[in-house]
């Protein structure tokens, strides 16, 4: 098992390099460049100022050479300085990362804790009122564009009913209130962004867990468990669920990329001071070092998530365990 984990961890490095190369090239192929944004709108900027800027940041050299330079610094976790304000990219990202992780982790938790019970109950009471209601709700959830839902939430719950704050994470008054009140305020600010980001995930995962549970409940070992005289609760929560969870673990790992790419949209909509919004602003400004930094960190988080779900799968399914057994 230890060897397997190490191997999988080391595999992340070449994957990260490969992905970063593609990102770098795509970013440079995309039309426009930093100087067109920074100086293009100002007619007083001369051609020489532009070429001077390109020279300072090495943008006049071939893309491959630029990538090599970027990669060399990347190995020392140096992502360079932002074009916009000259601050180191790594410190910009680090100041934004906690907000993003908080939002992602909350969404992830909500997806798991809401979707799984929905799936289980729907599977057990298949065809019942709850199941049918949820089927309709889930397909509506699937069909709704999440960013539109986010805007609706802001309009109705935030603006019309004034139940939740419409944007931001930590308001100006936070410094004046105590620790618990501040935490409560943070949770209160989390409600709408988490609702919007988790909605699609809940819809998808509840469907997966429903079908996974239905499949598990039709297996022979469930009949065996019943024939042993176990309570229905035990049959469902131990025998069926433990097997139904296996595919769900993989699917949970696969929802991570969606959450991370979604953060670009939702952090912008909710003015959430996270990495996604930083990345969005950087893309709009052709701030190459920041774009690369955010993209690489997002890639790393995604790969890490998939790695963790693989480990969890191996831990949950004895058939693919790599350790030597105790006998």
């Amino acid at each position, binding site marked *: 098992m230890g060897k397997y984990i190490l191997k999988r961890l080391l595999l992340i490095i070449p994957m990260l390099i490969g992905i970063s190369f593609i990102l770098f090239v795509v970013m440079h192929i995309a039309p426009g460049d930093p100087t067109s944004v920074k100086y293009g709108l100002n007619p007083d900027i001369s051609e020489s100022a532009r070429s001077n800027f390109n020279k300072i940041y090495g943008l006049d050299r071939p893309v491959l050479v630029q990538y090599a330079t970027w990669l060399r610094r990347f190995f020392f976790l140096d992502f360079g300085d932002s074009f916009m304000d000259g601050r180191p990219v790594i410190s910009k990202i680090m100041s934004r990362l906690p907000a993003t992780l908080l939002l992602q982790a909350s969404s992830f938790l909500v997806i798991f804790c809401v979707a799984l019970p929905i799936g289980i109950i729907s599977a057990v009471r298949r065809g019942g009122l709850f199941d049918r209601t949820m089927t309709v709700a889930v397909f509506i959830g699937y069909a709704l564009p999440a960013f539109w839902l986010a805007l609706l939430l802001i309009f109705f719950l935030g603006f019309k009913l004034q139940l939740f704050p419409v944007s931001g994470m930590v308001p100006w008054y936070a410094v004046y209130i105590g620790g618990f009140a501040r935490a409560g305020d943070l949770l209160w600010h989390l409600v709408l962004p988490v609702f919007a980001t988790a909605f699609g995930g809940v819809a998808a995962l509840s469907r997966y867990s429903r079908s996974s549970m239905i499949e598990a409940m039709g*297996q022979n070992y469930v009949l065996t468990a*019943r*024939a*042993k*005289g176990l309570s229905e609760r035990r049959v469902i929560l*131990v*025998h069926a669920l*433990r097997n139904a969870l296996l595919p769900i673990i993989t699917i949970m790992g696969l929802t991570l990329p969606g959450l991370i790419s979604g953060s670009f949209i939702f952090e912008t909509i909710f003015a959430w001071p996270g990495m996604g919004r930083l990345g969005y602003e950087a893309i709009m400004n052709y701030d190459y070092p920041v774009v690369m930094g955010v993209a690489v960190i997002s890639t790393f988080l995604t790969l890490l998530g998939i790695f963790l779900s693989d480990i969890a799968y191996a831990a949950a399914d004895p058939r693919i365990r790599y350790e030597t057994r*105790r006998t």
Partner: protein
Amino acid sequence: MDEKILEIKDLTVSFGENRVIEDVSFSIKRGEVTALVGESGSGKTMTALSILDLLPDTACRRKGEILFDGKNIFDLGPEELRDMRGNAIAMVFQEPFTALNPVIRIGRQIAEAVSAHGICPRSEVRERIKESLSTVRLPEETVYQYPHELSGGMRQRVMLSMALSCDPAILILDEPTTALDVSIQKHILDLIRHIQKDRQLTVLFITHDFSVVRTIADKVCVMRRGRVVEQGAKEDVLGEPACEYTRQLIACIPVLGDKRERLPVVDG
């Protein structure tokens, strides 16, 4: 030893309009091995599942009753029914490869059966599992293993030990050797026969194989298309089958040195 422990009366079960069991009646006496014989689809397994009231949701019981110790099991409440399953009437299924839960250790799966009925104090559960494993001649270490680490024959032994762990009054064996290869079949069959003799177990043995019937059964019950077409003592049924269908089935047993190129076709 002439006491009826289980009596099935006029049992009729259908899937929609399709009647898979029709007016089935037979009884099982204490300490006897009753063989339920028939081709695939003749309703043997559905009859067995009815005894545990574990028919699939889509099945519908039209009429009939099953008396266990004089009480109709269809009148039992859910909790009484749960306590009956595994404890009073235990069942071993045909497919040992899928009948055990792949993610739970063997020891735990047997322990569940024992502790579900509170038949012995928690501290003695371990001892009881060891005992039931040794009855089926499996090593003690099997408790730490997962089903995928065991062969088909070993898994069927586990199923058997699980069924025996609660000392059931009736043991239902649903084609326990069909999924195994021939050399293992004989071992398992010998084991079952040995345990049956040893404990004077009451067994309902479901099979399609008359050669197995010959070695193990006291009484035979032949089913065809959901109906019991013939029943009686083994000697009578095998010696002088009254029903044409039974005769055809018996004619299908290949004998060593058999020169026939084709076995007779049974009109199922």
